[in-house]
């Protein structure tokens, strides 16, 4: 293994790689991280044996996430530019034969939208509006290969920083880029580094926060799984800027592949002299330890994360002092999010000015979002700041499945809020989203349709925050519990007049008086749903009715006779045989038998089954 003792050796190594690289060679890039959940490893093995069998000149490359997770397992084919998804083992012989013969793409595995087929990746609407900086390597390189990373300008930014720039130059460049913390709070990264640089100390620490606890977010996971070296390089640059000698990557234990690949990447970087003592012979030393989280959401908060690394219960401390002054073991410490760090090498290479060209006045660069929920193209997208929610959800995300209507988008996880349809034209930047009542957050974006009850969503997030509250401060510990009890009353039809006002008042006091971000933002889902969907709360309160058909006991299902064609699909799928009717004649639901599981509604192709208010039945069914 080569050990770089100067920048020139790294440059020589890279030019050697570039010479050897053959871009005309046919390669199949297969996502073998996220897509594993859909059998990507079986597909990979099938490709291996089929390529051998057909004696095809094809190289198989295992990459990280390629973004379009809805089509998992996915492969991209270079240099043909074809993108295939939803593959199964039996498809592989055909696919390999097509690639080997360079024939026409197989339409049944390519992306399709509104009846149109898109065989080439560059034409797929999902990829078109994207701009990849953080995810520049994700899905292109083998995350297990440091050479692949170096070949795509990897470690060139730290070489540049160490060779040509003073720490203050690095900070200036990052400040000029305007990048703000991608973990959610949006604090300017350059400023954070400047503070930490300003404090004198024999030891300083640099931490990567990969404790991505927000339910509905998987950006950091994808970066650590797909391009771990970019995070390490970002940390190196940051450590040089503030004068840190040791770093930690704090990653969730629930992400086994991310733990495995980042551990491997640190080992490789150390072996090649990119981590450790006297890097490139410049006298700069920095090393990284991987720390696994142990399943506590609150550890995403920086002071709690520090407590966890120190080996204590992950409980937050009041700030100031901020970690930049007194952090890990009382030393100056910078904590940056995975996505922020992955952007840093590109900022140093291209200059802060180039990065600042993207985005809006107050929010620069790109942001990665995890699209999930009731949306066609679930997956990972990276878009320039300043585009609208509508563009993300409908152009990139492909809209709402089954012809249903968009109701709201939940942004920012448990600390975020729900934005309704009238805010679809909100621009993606920290201020506009906050003003609309949600937060940028780490980038989870859950799309909801008319079959999602907003009171239930508020209850869901409160339940989450209440369980994850560390219990240190009273407003969060008891306030979220009381709020949860109140919202639960709505979902059970037990709410009383005045409860909405009570809930609102309580939400405001929890927000204003909690110690850390978890408690301060826990009421957000309630505040935002009360702001935009107050009517739903009122319907639950006064009519004891859940119009979305979610809160059990507050509705019954009814088949609209004029819409029902008597196709019998609902009756066949009903697990309790509550639906009766003759073929080609409208069916009926026996409301006593019906357990309102909703399977019939999912199956009905004519939108004939809908929730109805249900006062009398409540009494019968207790």
């Amino acid at each position, binding site marked *: 293994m080569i050990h770089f003792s100067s920048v020139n050796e790294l440059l020589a190594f890279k030019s050697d790689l570039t010479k050897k690289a053959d871009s005309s060679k046919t390669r199949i890039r297969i996502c073998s991280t996220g897509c594993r959940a859909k059998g990507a490893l079986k597909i990979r093995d099938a490709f291996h044996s089929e390529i051998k069998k057909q004696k095809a000149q094809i190289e198989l490359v295992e990459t990280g996430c390629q973004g379009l997770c809805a089509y998992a397992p996915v492969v991209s084919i270079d240099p043909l530019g074809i993108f295939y998804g939803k593959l199964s083992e039996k498809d592989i012989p055909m696919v390999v034969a097509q690639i080997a013969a360079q024939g026409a793409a197989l339409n049944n595995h390519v992306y399709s939208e509104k009846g149109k087929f898109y065989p080439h990746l560059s034409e797929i609407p999902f990829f078109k509006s994207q701009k990849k900086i953080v995810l520049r390597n994700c899905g292109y390189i083998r995350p297990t290969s440091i050479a692949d990373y170096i070949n795509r300008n990897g470690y060139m930014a730290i070489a540049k920083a160490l060779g040509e720039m003073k720490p203050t130059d690095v900070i200036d460049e990052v400040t000029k880029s305007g990048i703000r913390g991608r973990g959610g709070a949006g604090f300017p990264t350059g400023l954070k580094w400047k503070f930490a640089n300003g404090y004198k100390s024999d030891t300083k620490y640099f931490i990567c926060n990969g404790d991505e606890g927000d*339910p509905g977010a998987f950006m950091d996971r994808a970066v650590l799984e797909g391009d771990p070296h970019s995070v390490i390089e970002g940390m190196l640059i940051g450590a040089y800027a503030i004068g840190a000698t040791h770093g930690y990557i704090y990653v969730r*234990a629930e992400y086994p592949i991310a733990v495995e690949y980042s551990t491997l990447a640190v080992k490789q970087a150390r072996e090649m002299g990119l981590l450790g003592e006297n890097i490139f012979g410049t006298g700069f030393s920095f090393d990284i330890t991987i720390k696994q989280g142990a399943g506590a959401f609150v550890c995403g908060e920086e002071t709690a994360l520090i407590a966890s690394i120190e080996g204590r219960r992950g409980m937050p401390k009041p700030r100031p002092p901020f970690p930049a002054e007194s952090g890990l073991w009382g030393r100056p410490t910078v904590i940056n999010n995975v996505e922020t760090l992955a952007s840093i090498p590109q900022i140093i290479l291209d200059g802060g000015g180039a990065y600042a060209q993207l985005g809006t006045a107050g929010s620069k660069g790109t942001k990665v979002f995890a699209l999930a929920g009731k949306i066609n193209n*679930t997956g990972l997208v990276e878009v320039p700041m300043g585009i609208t929610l509508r563009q993300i959800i409908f152009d990139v995300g492909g809209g709402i499945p089954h012809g249903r209507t968009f109701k709201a988008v*939940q942004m920012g996880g448990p600390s975020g809020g729900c934005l309704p349809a009238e805010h679809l034209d909100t621009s993606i930047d920290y201020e506009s989203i906050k003003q609309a009542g949600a937060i940028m957050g780490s980038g989870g974006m859950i799309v909801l349709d008319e079959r999602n009850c907003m009171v239930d969503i508020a209850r869901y997030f409160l339940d989450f925050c209440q369980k994850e509250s560390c219990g240190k401060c009273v407003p969060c510990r008891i306030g979220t519990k009381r709020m949860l009890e109140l919202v639960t009353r709505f979902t059970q039809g037990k709410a009383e007049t005045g409860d909405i006002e009570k809930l609102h008042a309580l939400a405001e006091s929890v927000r204003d008086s909690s110690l850390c971000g978890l408690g301060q933002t826990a009421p957000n889902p309630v505040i935002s749903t009360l702001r935009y969907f107050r009517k739903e709360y009122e319907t639950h309160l006064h009519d004891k009715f859940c119009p979305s058909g979610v809160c059990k006991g507050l509705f019954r299902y009814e088949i609209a006779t004029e819409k029902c064609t008597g196709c019998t699909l609902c009756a066949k799928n009903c697990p309790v045989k509550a639906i009766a009717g003759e073929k080609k004649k409208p069916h009926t639901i026996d409301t006593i038998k019906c357990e309102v599981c909703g399977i019939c509604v999912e199956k009905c192709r004519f939108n004939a089954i809908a929730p109805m208010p249900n006062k009398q039945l409540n009494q019968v069914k207790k």
Partner: protein
Amino acid sequence: MKPPTASQIKGVINGFAHNSASLVIPILQAIQEKFGYVPPESLKAISRHTGVGRNKIYGILTFYAQFTTIPRGKYIVKPCRGTACHVRGANNVINHIKSKLNIEDGQTTPDYKFSLETVACLGTCFLAPAMMVNQDYYGNLDEKRIDEALKECT
């Protein structure tokens, strides 16, 4: 199920440096990895090794969701209750698993074959509703797929 012996526990702990409070969590993780749970008897040995009080270690053990002090089954069924799964019917999934295995969240079947542990988010939102059984992911779950997944566990 035979609990691990004191010397087995010591064997794991001895792999770590002495007198370092920051190693409590990694030691607990190593013990759980090895035995499937953290036997309460191991607290004394960890305390001696790290110099951290047993009460503090107990506090850490019960604070983090990852740790369990009771033995678990051969297969850990982890349905996701993340947001994306929730809006796509995670409750039905969890209820079906509960009735199928006849246990509640956090419990283990009497034959120690299955444990049920719901998790806050698996980070596989594109598969919603999803679950993990040990290290394998299962997505787009409905009752049939759950039954098939559980049947694979032998």
